[in-house]
């Protein structure tokens, strides 16, 4: 699968592509190398892709701690997707992988960058993606909360 992804990225003009065999060696590389984005497979020997993402996000000093992450997976069940989201994954690329789908995911990362949240219970991109005017910004949301409080005081 690595060869497929690297070939597609090169075909689309990718210049510097670093490949690693497994989770631990990827984490070692990401600790010192600030990559533009990373693509990881859910199914990997030893550490799966979600574990890698979670550990990377929680390693504050890692050079790529906040790099966008695309997770490739064939699992479509809600539990797995939520698990990936809560580990700090930015985008999910469903298998079988096609060049178009891969570039679309990269496009989402570039065109719709999300803020990052670092909290004791979660580290990763803001999990709210919907362009809901009520939830457009954290500030607006807080103001909504204050409105609710004021309404109750009335």
């Amino acid at each position, binding site marked *: 699968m690595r060869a497929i992804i690297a070939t597609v990225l090169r075909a689309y003009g990718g210049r510097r592509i670093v490949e690693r065999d497994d989770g631990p060696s990827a984490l070692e590389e990401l600790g010192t190398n600030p990559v533009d984005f990373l693509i990881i497979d859910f199914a990997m020997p030893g550490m799966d892709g979600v574990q890698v993402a979670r550990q990377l996000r929680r390693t504050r000093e890692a050079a790529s701690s906040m790099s966008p992450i695309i997770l490739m997976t064939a699992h479509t069940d809600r539990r797995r997707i939520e698990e990936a989201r809560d580990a700090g994954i930015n985008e999910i690329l469903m298998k079988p992988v096609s*060049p178009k789908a891969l570039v679309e995911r990269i496009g989402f990362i570039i065109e719709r960058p999300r803020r990052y949240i670092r909290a004791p219970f979660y580290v990763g991109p803001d999990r709210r993606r919907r362009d809901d005017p009520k939830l457009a910004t954290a500030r607006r949301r807080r103001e909504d909360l204050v*409105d609710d409080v004021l309404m109750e005081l009335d």
Partner: protein
Amino acid sequence: MVDAASGGGAAPRKAVLPLPDGVEVLAPSGQLQRKLGGNSVRALLNPATERAALQSLETLRGNIERVLGERLTEIETLVRAREGGSMAGIYAAAHEIRGLAGTFQMEELGSAANLLCQYLDGAGAEHRMDPNLITSITVTARHCMAQAELARKGGKPDRELMAELLAECRQAVGVVRQREGRGE
């Protein structure tokens, strides 16, 4: 803590709640955007570049077919061995076949691998798998792979037979899962 509005008829002043302790909100670095520019990726999404990418992938086909064959052999070996832990190996091999076959438009082979995954989904490590079922699906997968190769060389694959074999396997997976108490 809420900084409530003051009284005296003035419009209530909205206040911003502080973030909970230990929570930071960080702006995206913008590094990737600066490097690539806003619309450069969208510009790549056109039929010509996609065709070029698919052509590049074709250079891998020989290797991929070799890997697919190796994974099928791995499944056959693990089924024969029937040792503890072989189920995880079979699932991993089937999972890989499913993904690779899909990318290289070998739909029937992908469907056969998907049936193996469906059969093994949710089975515990100590589950006693049905070797006959796995063998039947693997034989079907080999047939689908040979047909895909035939198609690539300009021959006419027997899609009807593949569909029939896959339907039989699909039915068998349902029956065996039911028998094993893992039915839908």
